[in-house]
């Protein structure tokens, strides 16, 4: 499922850029970007809009994978707005199996030592991403 889920970025002038069209996230000209979606099977399964004071340069989008030497792999989407948040953690495989798979951090990405979370979440997965391309 992870491999068949793509992002779509919507701009203020109505332009929509799609990963499925071969656009690389790192190349998004993101200042005018204000909505970001995950699309699976033609349906938007997640969407977020730039919070007040932020624009697309504050967006962070990552597919994060954890692998063990025993061969286990877990991949989740990490999407959020830096530096103020919110940030979202999505396990689409879990959601597809009717298990908990969406966690929200009002404080944005953070280390566990910085966590002020009121609800439990998978430990370590809200760690801040390293900025790419036009991200600020």
């Amino acid at each position: 499922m992870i491999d068949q889920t793509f992002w779509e970025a919507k701009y203020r002038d109505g332009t929509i850029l799609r990963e499925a069209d071969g656009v690389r996230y790192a190349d998004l000209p993101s200042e005018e970007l204000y909505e970001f979606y995950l699309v699976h099977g033609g349906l938007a399964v997640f969407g977020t809009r730039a919070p007040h004071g932020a624009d697309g340069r504050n967006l962070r989008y990552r597919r994060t994978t954890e692998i063990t030497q025993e061969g286990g792999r877990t991949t989740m989407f990490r999407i959020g707005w830096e530096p103020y948040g919110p940030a979202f953690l999505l396990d689409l495989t879990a959601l597809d199996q009717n298990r908990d798979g969406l966690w929200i951090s009002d404080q944005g990405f953070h280390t566990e030592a910085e966590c002020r979370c009121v609800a439990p979440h998978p430990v370590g997965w809200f760690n801040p991403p390293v900025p790419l391309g036009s991200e600020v």
Partner: protein
Amino acid sequence: MTLATVDIVRRTGPPTPVDTFITSGTTRASTSDVAAPGANNPIPIPSVGNTNYSYWVTTRLYITQNPDGHTVNNLQWFSATNSVPSGVTIKGQAANVTTNAGYRQATGTVGVSGTLLNTTNHTGLTGAPVDVFTFTTGAPKSLVGSNSSTGFGTTTPFDHFVLQVSVDSTAGSASPAPSNTFSWRYDEA
């Protein structure tokens, strides 16, 4: 769009490192510079007051496929378990200091003990080795590296993580010792 295929390799040998994929199986520390030693060359329990070491175990992420040129970065290493018997410790550290992006072949006396892992003997380490169990999922070891192609990366190549098992005279003789799960995490965009 296709996710990059990223695997863990164990590096051994000279003159250039030999990379052995270990993602689909366990790997074992031994007193030999062998990626898959099996039950051969276990770490002997030393006499009172002494310590024997495994040859150091060097692992690294490797991108096998990356058809869409995704950037892989924000590497993290941590222990998902903490299961070592009395008399056994495991210490490790990142390695990226030139040459060879921090790789140094493990040395020692086969079947007896590896060379102590420290910054004098392993000049690729970024610092003194520490107890690997201090690196947890919530407080992982951050590693340097960014790669939008395949392999280890060239401009900012992926760090190695190097660890060593130490056995002192108080250790029991269980063989093999309990296994531990060490994990890598990385971002892709």
